[in-house]
């Protein structure tokens, strides 16, 4: 027998987007992205252990335009997941449940990750002597 079509309870579509929702879902998304990044990290470590030639091949991939874009994305994902994770740890301790503080701390994670991503890349290019 076919099931009666019952009304569903309100879900995502009825809520207005806010910073706290964005911070929550992006913490999960960046976590998944970093899982992909961990495969690249492992590849790099294996290349380092394998030897000079293969390491240079992998470094060549990392240094290409696409490689740099991926690494830039991973840097952002890592910083966002770090900031989001610390925010969640504070919430686990019962802090920041006040709506205003909660929203501004969510926004702060994005400010942190964007600033830190730029700082890290500028610093890396300075070390390389490019900047």
């Amino acid at each position: 027998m076919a099931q009666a079509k019952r009304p569903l309870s309100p879900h995502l579509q009825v809520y207005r987007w806010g910073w706290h929702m964005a911070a929550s879902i992006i913490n999960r998304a960046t976590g998944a992205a970093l899982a992909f990044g961990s495969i690249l990290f492992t590849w790099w470590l294996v290349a380092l252990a394998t030897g000079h030639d293969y390491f240079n091949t992998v470094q060549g991939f990392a240094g290409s335009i696409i490689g740099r874009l991926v690494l830039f994305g991973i840097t952002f994902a890592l910083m966002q997941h770090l900031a989001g994770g610390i925010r969640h740890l504070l919430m686990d301790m019962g802090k920041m449940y006040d709506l205003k503080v909660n929203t501004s701390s969510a926004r702060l994670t994005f400010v942190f990750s964007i600033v830190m991503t730029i700082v890290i890349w500028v610093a890396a290019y300075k070390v390389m002597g490019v900047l």
Partner: protein
Amino acid sequence: MTDMKTPLAKVRGLGAAKDGTHHWWMQRVTAIANIPLVIFMVVSFVGNAGKGHAEWVAWMKQPLVSVLVILFVANFCYHMRLGLQVIVEDYVHEHGTKIATMLFISFACVLVAALSIFSVLRIAFGG
């Protein structure tokens, strides 16, 4: 509020997932451990940016660096395994698919950890 739990269930404290709070707690433990380890890795990668194979190997061979990289790998792989499990539990509902996906994730996380740690050891103890 009426408590629907049996006294035995209350004592076990396991809940619907039959796993109690262990998963939740270990995700926090590994998250806290990840903070200093991630900072160490980021600072190291920035500091060694653009270096060649020999310099990277020399850096990795330092005992403290080898140990910290191994700790980083072990810790993030555990954290990654726990985090991916939560995503699967939220979005994969068919029992068989869920079990298969979780098996794949578990094996993949252990493989990432084993390959990475073996590589660090090979560099650390290599000639």
